[in-house]
């Protein structure tokens, strides 16, 4: 949902996943003012009201009234992740969910037979 800051008119995009059922404070990425609000099913049901203190959750993205973007540490939060250890970089694996071999890690040319990984070709 969109929080247009009542103070500076910056559009703060409260990304739907973390702000789906939210009760707490967020901070405008444009002017830093803290706002208390409550959402239910992604829609705002209470607020925004001016508040003090730290924000509980930052917006995902923000835009000034002239459409120039605002993002960065302390201003917006990085994308939500389904797993705590997810880093949005390739994660190598050797075995899959049922413990069988799968080619899920980077290889070198000497690891290949033609286009196939040697350890797949040679497994018993």
């Amino acid at each position: 949902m969109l929080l247009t800051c009542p103070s500076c008119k910056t559009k703060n995009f409260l990304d739907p996943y973390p702000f789906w059922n939210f009760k707490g404070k967020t901070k405008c990425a444009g002017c830093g003012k803290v706002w208390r609000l409550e959402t239910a099913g992604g829609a705002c049901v209470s607020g925004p009201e001016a508040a003090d203190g730290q924000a509980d959750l930052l917006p995902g993205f923000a835009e000034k009234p002239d459409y120039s973007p605002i993002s960065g540490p302390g201003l917006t939060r990085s994308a939500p992740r389904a797993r705590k250890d997810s880093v949005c970089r390739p994660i190598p694996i050797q075995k899959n969910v049922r413990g069988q071999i799968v080619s899920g890690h980077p290889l070198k040319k000497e690891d290949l037979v033609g286009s196939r990984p040697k350890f797949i070709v040679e497994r018993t």
Partner: protein
Amino acid sequence: MAKETASKSATQQGFEDFCHETFDFKKAFGKPEALKGYRVLSCTQYILGPSCASYMAELGAEVIKIEAPRRGEAMRHTTPFNEPFLYPLSRWVPERGTGLGFLGANPNEYFISVDFHRPEGQAIVKKLAAKSDVMVENYRPGTFDRWGIGYRQLREINPRLVYCWLGGFGGWGPGRVRASYDILGQSQGGNFGMTGKPEFLGGTPSKHTIWLADYWGGMMGAVQILAALYWRDKISGEGTFTEYSQVHGVTRQLEYALPLYGRHGVTRERWGNWDTQLCVHGIIKCGKSSYPKSENPQEQEEGYILISAYDDKDFARLCQAVGDGKTAEKYAKHDARVKPQSQMEIYPWLEKWAADKTKEQVAETLDKAGINNQPVWNAKEVANHPHWQQRGAVQWLDDPTFGDLMHQGPAYKMSHTPPRLKWALKPVGADNEYILGKLAGLSSEELRRLEEQECI
């Protein structure tokens, strides 16, 4: 009465066993393939084009996927949150992998790499087209025509070629010169405008998460190719130029929205997870989570369940199961139930009843009452259900390149010519020597030279 019942169940049992044996996907490899002998060139990317060719590959056609040298097509570089990959991407770039986005739209195919921009690459495509039945491509309209490998050029070489172009807006018309993606197709086609929550429930439109316009489009493309092949082989001996626009495919599925507008001037609105034509026939929220201790935050959520009780008798039984005689009386007739104001009362009433139950508990109560219902399943629940494992909808595939993969099985069930899953995908250019040597007649020196120049 008892004898009658006994003989009835024997017949039913017999039919089920007959179906199980006839359609057992594990026996597929012992039976013929419906499209064996047809050769399809797939110069495609993302999902729209590849899925069209893949539906034919599942049925036994020899599908040759042609990609850009070394790095392959763009879909190989898409994967959820940039994390899971299958290695190697190609024998030239083994330290990178193919993303999981590529899975499911490219099974059973042969993979070669050719640079379409170069005259030598175009000459190779012409050599292959001379020996192929079908060409599928989804580049921007007119691109292959400009490169000398479009329908107008290839039909001179092979008048029997069925040429299938798939894309967003078609090759002609005022809207034609634009790139298109599934989400754009859903937005323009009218789908996105009717899907999602109505205003009183939060009011957000929602696209289908799956690239439905692309998969549906691939299937429509495959149907028009098979029709063109039938016409060629049974009637005319000639090839066909076919064109498919994915926005048109989305519009095709809009049900009554267009006739409604034409007749009354009324624009169809979003109606969330309920139905505009039937009540009760929608998805409600259950208050308790089925996996409260899961690390996955979405799994921790409360569950959802589809309830279908639009027949008056079913609705009466539903009210009995919920224990509410007043609602049963007020909404006994479907005409009374289907009105928007009635639905806005009935579904919250059901959600109140389900507020202290998991979706499985709700399902158990409704099953006992004989009410049609289906808990909304996530990927884990689908993957572990014995019905879909036995029917081959979900298969463990021992892929010859990548190892143990869970993969969706082909959806057709055919008694004499079942489709089958041979392999999930291969690295870029894995079959260069086999296909270019066998079909394009290139010698090993020519192959080496073209490889050094990155033409293949």
